[in-house]
């Protein structure tokens, strides 16, 4: 800032000052700086302390706390309030008790108001215990003495009057008035600055936020905007020119009384999991030893015993027993209820967790880095996620609430932040751009976008990127991205408090009635080392349990995950063919093409397979080297024995996140704690710069240890490539177990498997139609929906046979009510239905249900073709109370039976699938005349052959890792074809690419290592060949 009076910012000779009234962007749409920015700037300016006082919120406090720890700046915990009568004040916590009081007071205000708001009145401020808090009155323009007198009496010796001056021309007069007021009411005056931003350059953003908050363009806001940018952290020399010295000195007296730090919240763990006579340490040891005996009835190998000892000692040192005991308790409940679960995460794959039954990954099979979750250098708790069947996770959550009480357990918050799209939309509105323009811009951002492509999108939306408005829009949007917008519930992160939760963290209302959410998210809890259990939902576990249930019926013996025979070569042979539709984690298109190249032959190959098809390894360019080494085309070499130890299991190519950290340790001399910081830097998308700090250290470390510059650069590049996408081996190891289990089911019990998948929808990558097509290709008989035989779920017919047929369930019928389906099944048990009228009467179906059944052709057994079914269903009238059977004598008119393609179209419209011929089969004669080949034909063609194929479009994708290439999968009656479409090809044929349901492609065959692609050239939409066909393509997820 070239302003004369701002010179000498960092003059340290000035007086001491602590800012006691500062808002971050966690005072949503008021504060214009991140908490970290405020803390860092306060430290830079030499402030003695900073109080973060977001309005009725502690949401940003943990972020500020972490930054304050880094900057060694004392952080004061506080909050700003406005009572219903307009009285405004700041509360500051002096100690742990005061912190609890403040948190409970915030909770009180938040719980009385709808989501995102709070409500407090004078009476509540008078009565709520706040003995360990300090209060600062924020007087209005025309303050009333009574308010000051009241506060002085309510907080005797603990209350002040804030004097806040902002160069509005009347500062002197205001100062004099407030000093007089302070004298009259007996409150000492203190200087505060109502800070809304860390530096004055943020004023523009602050004005914009005000416009968003008030929902009016900034140009119309007038005096609702601040007149100048003075509400930033001002350098101390400037403050001395604005405030009398005694007012500045007073800030120090207050700051000295506030001695509380969030670090004190640690070790507040629930106690009830440890029985009398045991300490947490001895009880965990006891449970672990029980588990050892169970897992290794003949005695555990020495290596395992040593590992267990090491882990137990570390856990005890860090006092992390409650984490393990809590998770042990939760999975114990699930086991007892027969709910399938599986732990994952680095801590979950420890030997202790294996012994406790939290996970099934045998530590002997993996070389996992236990240090990642616990290291002596940092104070962060272990990471244990537990996945449960998605349809039964609610039972687990209810158990937690029962066990600990709703006043002690709650779901963590999930912080919604501004993304490119929402930021542009809001800023554009604030700048007064027309609705049509705003919409145009926001809509285009829908498609495969990141903030980097913003400028291109702007141009496309008809805004000149060089106009001042557009430049403002761009820079403001970019500043706004990452700002918090609101809190919602996290999917499964549970926090459990030692006693009252509101004493630990404020609780507020969520959108759903009766739901509450705490003000901290998962990262906050983790940063503070608070007890948190991740209770997550996983559809595949539901499907596996259902499939195992079907096996129990057909084989007559109990089945569990453990009963699935391990390392079955038939299973791996199937996977190596890329035949993996429905298999957990390896069913995506990218995985399907990787399987035949990587050819997984054992469990550990699967672990790699899952981790390698990720943006991290792809961007780090690790895929091709790994495949080359695996196929023997490239020698496996290591730059040193130390590196060999780390990378041996992945042939010298780092694939897992853990390996990158280990490399940093063995090759560059990082400590375990530093390596973990590196991991966090990799994940911190918001501040790319942080990773660069490690660059020098890493490169220097490797040079010092004799590695070549080339190797060092390569490793650094890989680390950068990993970014946020690096996949940890610990997760991959758990996922691989489920991938194997589901592959085994698909391989040996395809009917049970597809039935279970269909009954666990929505889940996975493919729609029911594709799963059924796949099952039929694997010789599974699929029987049509039929109101005479179908249950709600899909069923196996007959269930006791080893290779049964699958009867589609009524759940697939679009528009049919669950209750209606239940009545159909119940009434059918008495006697079969005679006709539609009988059905509607006995199952008490309304017209809507009946028409839904007719549309799905589920009435064909009663009525013949679906048009007659529909006519009959439509004619059903609700039974009147007087006549139980409505009299209906009408002739059924002659209705033309639908033609085959009309039936297929109607099938897709109602159920999203058809058991009739594939739509492409209908077109085949016509296609054949044009010389268009089938998907099957392509496999017999030489590389580079020019060919034309046609198919239903199943999905369109444009991964960020693929430099603008679009991938499209089409399907004809013989199978799938994967298309690769270069950006220029796509751009020239947007319409055909984006709108076709049936696509005709001219292209060249690319076949390599069992993978076939078609490099697309000309695209044609054949949609009008089959009128009305509605196939849902899965686009751009």
């Amino acid at each position, binding site marked *: 800032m070239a302003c004369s009076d701002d010179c000498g910012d960092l003059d340290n000779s000035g007086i001491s000052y602590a800012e006691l009234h500062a808002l971050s962007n966690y005072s949503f749409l008021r504060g214009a700086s991140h908490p970290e920015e405020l803390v860092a700037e306060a430290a830079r300016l030499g402030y003695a302390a900073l109080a973060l006082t977001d309005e009725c919120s502690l949401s940003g406090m943990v972020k500020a706390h972490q930054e304050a720890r880094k900057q060694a700046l004392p952080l004061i915990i506080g909050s700003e309030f406005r009572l219903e009568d307009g009285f405004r004040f700041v509360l500051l916590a002096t100690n742990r008790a005061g912190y609890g009081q403040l948190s409970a007071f915030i909770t009180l205000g938040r719980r009385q108001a709808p989501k995102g708001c709070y409500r407090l009145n004078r009476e509540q401020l008078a009565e709520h215990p706040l003995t360990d808090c300090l209060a600062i009155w924020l007087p209005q323009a025309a303050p009333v003495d009574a308010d000051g007198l009241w506060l002085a009496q309510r907080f005797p010796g603990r209350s002040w009057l804030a004097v806040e001056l902002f160069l509005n021309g009347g500062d*002197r007069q205001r100062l004099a008035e407030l000093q007089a007021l302070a004298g009259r009411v007996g409150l000492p005056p203190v200087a505060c600055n109502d800070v809304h931003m860390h530096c004055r350059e943020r004023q523009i953003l602050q004005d914009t936020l005000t416009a968003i908050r008030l929902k009016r363009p900034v140009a119309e806001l007038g*005096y609702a905007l601040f007149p100048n940018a003075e509400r930033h952290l001002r350098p101390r020399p400037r403050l001395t020119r604005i405030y009398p010295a005694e007012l500045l000195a007073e800030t120090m007296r207050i700051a000295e009384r506030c001695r509380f730090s969030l670090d004190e919240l640690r070790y507040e763990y629930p106690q009830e999991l440890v029985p009398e006579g045991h300490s947490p340490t001895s009880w965990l040891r006891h449970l672990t030893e029980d588990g050892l005996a169970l897992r290794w009835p003949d005695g555990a190998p020495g290596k395992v015993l040593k590992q267990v000892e090491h882990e137990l000692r570390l856990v005890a040192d860090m006092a992390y027993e409650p984490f393990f005991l809590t998770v042990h308790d939760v999975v114990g409940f699930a086991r007892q209820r027969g709910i399938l679960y599986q732990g994952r995460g680095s801590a979950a794959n420890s030997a202790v967790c294996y012994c406790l039954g939290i996970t099934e990954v045998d530590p002997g099979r993996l070389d996992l880095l236990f240090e990642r979750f616990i290291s002596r250098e940092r104070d962060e708790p272990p990471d244990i996620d537990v996945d449960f069947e998605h349809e039964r996770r609610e039972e687990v959550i209810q158990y937690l609430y029962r066990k600990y009480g709703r006043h002690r357990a709650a779901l963590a918050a999930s912080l919604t932040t501004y993304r490119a799209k929402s930021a542009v939309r809001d800023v554009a509105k604030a700048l007064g751009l027309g609705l049509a323009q705003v919409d145009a811009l926001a809509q285009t951002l829908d498609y495969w976008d990141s903030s980097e492509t913003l400028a291109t999108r702007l141009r496309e939306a008809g805004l000149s990127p060089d106009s*001042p408005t557009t430049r*403002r829009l761009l820079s403001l949007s970019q500043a706004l991205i990452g700002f918090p917008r609101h809190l919602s519930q996290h999917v499964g992160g549970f926090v459990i408090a030692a006693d009252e939760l509101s004493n630990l963290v404020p609780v507020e209302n969520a959108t759903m009635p009766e739901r509450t959410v705490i003000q901290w998210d998962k990262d906050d809890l983790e940063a503070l080392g608070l007890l948190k259990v991740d209770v997550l939902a996983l559809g595949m576990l539901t499907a596996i349990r259902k499939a195992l249930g079907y096996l129990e019926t057909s084989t007559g013996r109990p089945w569990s995950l453990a009963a699935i025979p391990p390392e079955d070569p038939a299973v791996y042979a199937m996977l190596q063919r890329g035949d993996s539709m429905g298999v957990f984690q390896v069913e995506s298109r990218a995985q399907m093409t990787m399987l035949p190249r990587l050819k997984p032959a054992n469990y550990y190959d699967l672990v790699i397979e899952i981790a390698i098809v990720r943006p991290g390894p792809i961007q780090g360019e690790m895929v091709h080297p790994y495949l080359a080494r695996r196929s023997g085309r490239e020698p496996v070499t290591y730059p040193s024995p130390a590196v060999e130890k780390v990378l041996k299991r992945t042939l010298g190519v780092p694939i897992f996140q853990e390996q990158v950290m280990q490399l940093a340790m063995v090759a560059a001399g990082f400590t375990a704690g530093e390596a973990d910081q590196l991991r966090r830097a990799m994940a911190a998308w918001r501040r790319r710069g942080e990773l660069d700090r490690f660059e020098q250290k890493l490169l220097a470390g490797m040079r010092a240890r004799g590695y070549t510059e080339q190797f060092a650069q390569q490793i650094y590049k890989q680390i950068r490539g990993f970014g946020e996408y690096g996949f940890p081996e610990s997760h991959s190891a758990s996922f691989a177990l489920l991938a194997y289990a589901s592959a085994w089911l698909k391989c040996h019990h395809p009917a049970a498997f597809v039935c279970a998948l269909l009954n666990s929808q929505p889940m996975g990558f493919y729609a029911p139609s594709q799963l059924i097509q796949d099952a039929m290709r694997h010789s599974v008989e699929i029987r049509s929906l039929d109101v005479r035989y179908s249950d709600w779920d899909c069923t196996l017919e007959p269930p006791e046979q080893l290779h049964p047929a699958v009867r589609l369930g009524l759940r697939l019928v679009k528009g049919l009510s669950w209750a209606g389906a239940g009545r159909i099944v119940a009434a059918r048990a008495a006697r079969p239905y005679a006709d539609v009228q009988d059905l509607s009467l006995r199952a008490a179906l309304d017209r809507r249900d009946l*028409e839904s059944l007719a549309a799905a052709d589920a009435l064909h057994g009663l009525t013949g073709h679906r048009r007659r079914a529909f006519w009959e269903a439509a004619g059903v*009238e609700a039974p009147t109370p007087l006549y139980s059977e409505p009299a209906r004598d009408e002739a059924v008119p002659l209705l033309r039976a639908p033609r085959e393609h009309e039936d297929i179209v109607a099938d897709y419209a109602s159920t999203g699938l058809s058991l009739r011929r594939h739509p492409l089969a209908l077109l085949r004669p016509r296609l054949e005349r044009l010389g268009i080949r089938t998907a099957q034909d392509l496999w017999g063609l030489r590389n580079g052959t020019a060919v034309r194929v046609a198919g239903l479009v199943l999905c369109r994708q444009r991964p960020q890792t693929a430099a603008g290439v679009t991938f499209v999968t089409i399907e004809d009656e013989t199978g799938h074809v994967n298309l690769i479409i270069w950006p220029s090809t796509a751009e020239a044929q947007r319409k055909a690419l984006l709108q076709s349901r049936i696509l005709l492609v001219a292209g060249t065959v690319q076949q390599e290592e069992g993978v076939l692609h078609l490099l697309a050239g000309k695209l044609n939409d054949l949609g009008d060949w089959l009128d009305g066909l509605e196939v849902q393509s899965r686009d751009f997820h």
Partner: protein
Amino acid sequence: MLAEVAITSLRSPDRVPDDPRGVCSGSPGPLWLCAHFPDLSRDVLPLPADRPAAVIETAKGRPLLQATNIWAAGYGLAPGLPLSAAYALCPDLVIAERDPDRERQALERLARCALGFTPWVSLDLAPALLLEVRGSLKLFGGLEVLTSQLMDRLAASGHRAVCAATPSPYASALLARWGREAAVEHVEELRSALGDLPGAALGLDERTHERLLKAGLATLRDLWRLPREGLVRRYGTELLLRLDRAAGLLATPLREFRSPPCFHARFELSSETDRLAYFFPAIEQLLQRLSDFLYERDAGLTRLHLALEHRDRPPTRLKQGSRRPERAAAHFGRLLRERLERLSLPAPVCAVAVSSAALVPWAAVATDLFGQCADEAADWQQLLDQLEARLGPQALKPLVLRADHRPERACGGTAQALAAPSRLAPRPLWLLARPRRVPRGELAVIRPQPERIESGWWDAAGIRRDYHVATDRRGAKLWIYRELERPDRWYLHGLFG
């Protein structure tokens, strides 16, 4: 003195019978010509003609395309497509929101054109006009000629029409909407003429339409084939109603379009004159007629036109507005006199004409016992009108009070909507139109605490200044500032009184 006064307002003929029984009795019944305007929504909006453009409409909370131009259609954009999808297909698409008001206005304009072909026109089936043309056939020499002339006339006003004529107004509309330029003479032929129209043409709600399709009932013929009671039971009476209207079995109630009344009167002077005193009484007489005309219709006027005709040269035309609807001859008389007194005439006046421009319904004004206007605001408005008439419209400007931190944008005081800061530092009453650079040395700052104003970054006139109060050598109290970026330069911005 020869006076020729013509008061026109369109008189409607008696309502045309739309009774099918009348048709069956053998006498030729009404013939309804429907002129449908497929591009109306697009044509009324300022969209480019040389680039892809579309009209959007919000349905169920999301914007959908309502109409497209030929360029957009080339990209595969069609009505009903969500805007997001449209942008994916055509990123350069220009869009505008649908404007029902403009469409209505355009349609009314077109209806006035159509009145040249038949007195009976209806706008009820918008965006289309329905004309009863049986009576006009002879005059125009048959339907074909009439239709082609009508289409030319409509095209001349900038709108493409699709025309169809049948004995049922509803059937005509269905055909025209579906792009069928058909002519059906007899009611009995309606079913076969409309049979292959898709069920969607009936414009039923989407759900009913879907249900019809599911039973395989795709066309009107399919529907006509089914038992009536079966249809009613399944799809409701509305479907049957529309089918019967389409088949000419049921009358379609239509409201007649009436052109709004207007007033035009002319007074030829017995001799040419350029003296106001001689020709103004004629104007007053016309104004009195106008006033009577307005009272009769309980209407008021916000604008009238006066034409002063000269021999051998174009007339002098005056437009006279009024702030609120007026109908008293005296009021307009006062206003016109104010202006005419200042007007220099190019030539003597030989005739005067007065016509009404914008007729509006009269809003009753309370009058007190003596017939005096009790509404002070009304008096005030009349005074303003008079001032404006005397000084010219540019002279009179409202004193705008804007809420803006920038002094040059705000005239002090408070704005209604947004609370002003309760203490604005004192501002001078007189601001310089353009701040003037002043040498700092000649000034003595008397209020050292600056007022810092940083605002207005959103337009081209953002400021970042520190304001001070100072006195010059003569003791005048000045408002001066310096830019935060250039603190060495001082500017004079205002003078305290």
